[in-house]
């Protein structure tokens, strides 16, 4: 065809697209992690990294295995998890409730948003001594700390999510004569769920961070107490083992929320 006949000075148009689009590359993370760990192992073995700077990764692994074999891992993990679950459940449930109220009622919004804004940036750790007086030194003060820590970010993400619910859907509900409660339950709540769930990731991460703070006072067992003790003994192997457990905890909770999102938000496709 004549269209395919080209003069000598013809050249292909240079490709200028591509990039700027993250593509899942399997294994890249594993390679990065393995390289870093091998580097640390090599460095500590040759003395290039002193044992004051970094523990030997293999020693951290041994510490973890010993911890698991001694059964103490479950002792620490179970008390920490129960603190995280109880405190987090209280904080997140209350946070979703208050966030919904702020999203739905103008008076609550006007009254509470400044309170939440004032409460949010307070380092909850600073309030720990006060919590000890209020709730006692045992579990209650730990629950309270984690609950308060997860409470405020959940409120903010929840009312943000409620604000973002498509108003035409609400108007549709009203136009069909749905009751107020039906609109909240069947339109606002499911519509806000994506925002609430993504806020949950942040809240749970804050809960894990606060676990260490909560176990500063009066905790004999718990991952946080274990890390603090390792820190005060300057025992880097245990410190890193504890931090590793927290990281795994973070990854696990994030994975669980991911599963929840997949199940509850399958309509997003």
């Amino acid at each position, binding site marked *: 065809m004549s269209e395919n006949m080209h003069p000598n000075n013809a050249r292909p148009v240079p490709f200028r697209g591509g990039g700027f689009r993250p593509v899942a590359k399997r294994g890249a993370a594993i390679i990065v992690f393995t390289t870093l760990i091998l580097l640390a192992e090599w460095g500590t073995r040759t003395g290039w990294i002193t044992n004051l700077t970094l523990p030997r990764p293999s020693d951290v692994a041994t510490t973890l295995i010993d911890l698991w074999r001694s059964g103490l891992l479950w002792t620490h993990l179970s008390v920490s998890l129960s603190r995280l679950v109880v405190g987090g459940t209280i904080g997140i449930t209350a946070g979703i409730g208050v966030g919904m109220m702020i999203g739905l009622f103008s008076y609550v919004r006007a009254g509470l948003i400044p309170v939440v804004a004032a409460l949010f940036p307070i380092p909850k750790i600073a309030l720990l001594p006060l919590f000890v007086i209020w709730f006692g030194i045992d579990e209650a003060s730990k629950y309270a700390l984690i609950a308060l820590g997860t409470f405020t970010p959940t409120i903010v993400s929840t009312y943000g999510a409620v604000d973002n619910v*498509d108003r*035409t*859907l609400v*108007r*549709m509900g*009203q*136009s*069909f*004569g*749905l*009751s107020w409660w*039906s609109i909240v339950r*069947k*339109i606002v709540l*499911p*519509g806000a*769920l994506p925002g609430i769930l993504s806020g949950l990731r942040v809240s749970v991460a804050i809960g894990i961070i606060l676990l260490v703070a909560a176990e500063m006072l009066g905790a004999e067992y718990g991952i946080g107490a274990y890390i603090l003790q390792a820190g005060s003994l300057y025992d880097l192997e245990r410190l890193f083992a504890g931090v590793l457990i927290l990281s795994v905890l973070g990854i696990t909770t994030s994975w669980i929320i991911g599963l929840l999102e997949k199940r509850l*938000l399958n*309509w*997003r*496709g």
Partner: protein
Amino acid sequence: MDLTLENITHRYDGLTVLEDVSLHIPAGQILCIIGPSGCGKSTLLRLIGGLEQPSAGQVLQLGTPPAGCLNPLTYVFQDFALLPWRSVGGNISLVLEDHGIRGAAADKIIDDVLARTKLSDFRAALPRQLSGGMKQRVAIARALAVNPAVMLLDEPLSALDAQTRELLMEDLIGLWQRQPFTGVYVTHNLAEAVRLGHRIAVLSRRPGRLRDVIDIDIPLGERHIGDPRLEALQTRLWDAMKQEAMAADQELLHV
């Protein structure tokens, strides 16, 4: 059930959107409301359905809605307003649940309206799996499910492409022919107005006043694309509106 609009005036923050609109909407007919952008057509529809309150004047219902009518004034929205987390069937059952219709009774209604809108095979599908035209048919099915006395259609075809729009117009005509319903149909598209309207109310640019009401005697079933009578009517409407539309266009630039 007839509807009557008495001297409706509406303002937003001191800006008059509608001024002294009086209109009769007889039962069993489709009334189209047309007008340039920003003339308050959609506002008028929200006033008719009771989603907003007019600043002055009132909307009156004459007579009682027919028996079995769950939601006398029922909307069909431009952007469909389907709950993305509910299936086609679920979206319809949503509007039945609050009336205590569940289980077999609800299934019967859902099957019926899905059949009428040719959606029977898609009952379990989620909105994201449907095309725009299908979504709007679901919305229409949902409106039919509550057996409305008056259907309030707010630019229902504007979000669709031209071919889909044509198909849906035929569907709407078919629905009306099988079971005539009262409709108020807001559009800026003159072709839709002359195809679907028994009467056409023309609004001026803002503040919207009623400029003209035109009756079209041609039965809905006989109106086809390219019908010279409709073309002539459309041209007439356009001539009447052109100046207004241009002025409205200029006006928007200054807002």
